[in-house]
């Protein structure tokens, strides 16, 4: 059992985008702050800081979570994927390509979170309907696009991924 005093630092090990990292953090440190300020993963953004906007969404042990609503100490031993983990060998992920091609972002602030929510959705449901896509990203606010192009992009990405599997 871990018991950590309020002022003490806790040693945390997390696997981020396939590589293990270690850090000493206060119990109150949020996962998003450890990712950004300690480990240097500045892809996930801090938007509202109240658990509403979803800009800080990352995948933790296979599930999308808002990393401002998880303590860093809770992530000890976890596997985390941030938006930086989507790209492989210099090639964009089909979701990133589809966002680009469908003009699914304007200011881009919410995009890292949108991508990770879309990633979780497609990991569970490779061929979602428009309604399922809208449901899947309801925890991610976008103030620019009106969502239409984001929905289109996710649909297109699903198609790309299906095609890639076929060939």
């Amino acid at each position, binding site marked *: *059992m*871990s*018991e*950590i*005093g*309020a*002022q003490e630092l*806790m040693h945390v090990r997390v696997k981020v985008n396939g590589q293990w990292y270690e850090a000493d953090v*206060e*119990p*109150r*440190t*949020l996962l998003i*702050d450890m990712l950004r300020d300690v480990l240097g993963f500045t892809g996930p953004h801090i938007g509202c*800081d*109240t*658990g*509403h906007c*979803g800009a800080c*969404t990352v995948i933790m042990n296979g*599930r*999308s*979570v*808002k990393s*401002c*609503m*998880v*303590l860093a*100490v*809770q992530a000890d031993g976890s596997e985390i994927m941030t938006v930086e983990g989507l790209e492989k060998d210099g090639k964009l992920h089909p979701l990133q390509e589809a966002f680009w091609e469908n003009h699914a972002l304007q200011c881009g602030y919410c995009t890292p979170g949108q991508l990770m*929510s879309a990633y*979780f*959705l497609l990991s569970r449901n490779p061929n979602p309907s428009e309604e399922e896509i809208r*449901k*899947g990203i*309801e*925890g*991610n606010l976008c103030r620019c696009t009106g969502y239409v192009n984001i929905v289109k992009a996710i649909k297109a990405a699903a198609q790309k991924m299906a095609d890639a599997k076929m060939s």
Partner: protein
Amino acid sequence: MRPAPFEYYAPTSVEDALRLLEEKEGAKLLAGGQSLLALMKLRLLAPPALIDLNRIGGLRYVREDGNGWISIGAMTLYDELEQSPLIRTRYPAMHEALYRLGDQQVRNRGTIGGSLAHADPSANLPPVMVALKAQLVAARRGGERRTIPADEFFLDAFTTALEPDREMLVEVRLPPWPPGSGGTYMKLSKREIDFSIVEVAAQMSVDGDGRVKESRVVLGSVATRPYRATAAENVLSGSVVDDALAAKAAEAGTKDLEPPSDVQASSWYRKEVAKVLVKRAILRAWKRARGVEQ
């Protein structure tokens, strides 16, 4: 904002968690954290210690017992319950409440036990638990267990029958409803991800002619705890439900409501909406019980 400093404990057994709860003055149990961490970040709460339940094994399950009851571990995620075919087919009211609870990220983290112990008056699950006649199992040190009917569990806003510093919720048990039963959950909120302005859970069983044998109509967001509309249940009892009867039951069941006014809605508006939702919920629950609607 960031939470005020706190001590952090991550016990690996219920017994250790309960010992810490007793020893650490003012400590809070941390389940999914989707409400607690939000309150701590706003500094509305600043507990000196958190006892994280996520490292305790054996509290995440949905299983059917031999006698038709369904048992759910307190740390089972909303998402796991929402995806459960057992919950969807046996308790459509609960499935609907879970489908419309928070967003995907919240459902990936939040737990049934956390929600019920938090007892937010506008949360989705409390009225459903009362409507389904759930039994909530509290653990005490030394392996002691106590079963609390959902009817008696929610005492006031953010206040439950769990004994402070001595008990924690470990299991939710749902009783079998007989063949010829049906239920539904409905809510009005500004957006899907928002807390409800009014919510209703209705559950009933009917005989072969469609006469109501037993019914439960429970509202949320209209009082400091789930509000059981017994007057509506009395109107339904022994009758075949039609539009007029559902309207009469809704009128009777919401007559004595004195809902709060807040930034979301006025008291008057809540009461009007409650009437509409109760009527619709009764009609759908009855049709489901009759097997004429999914």
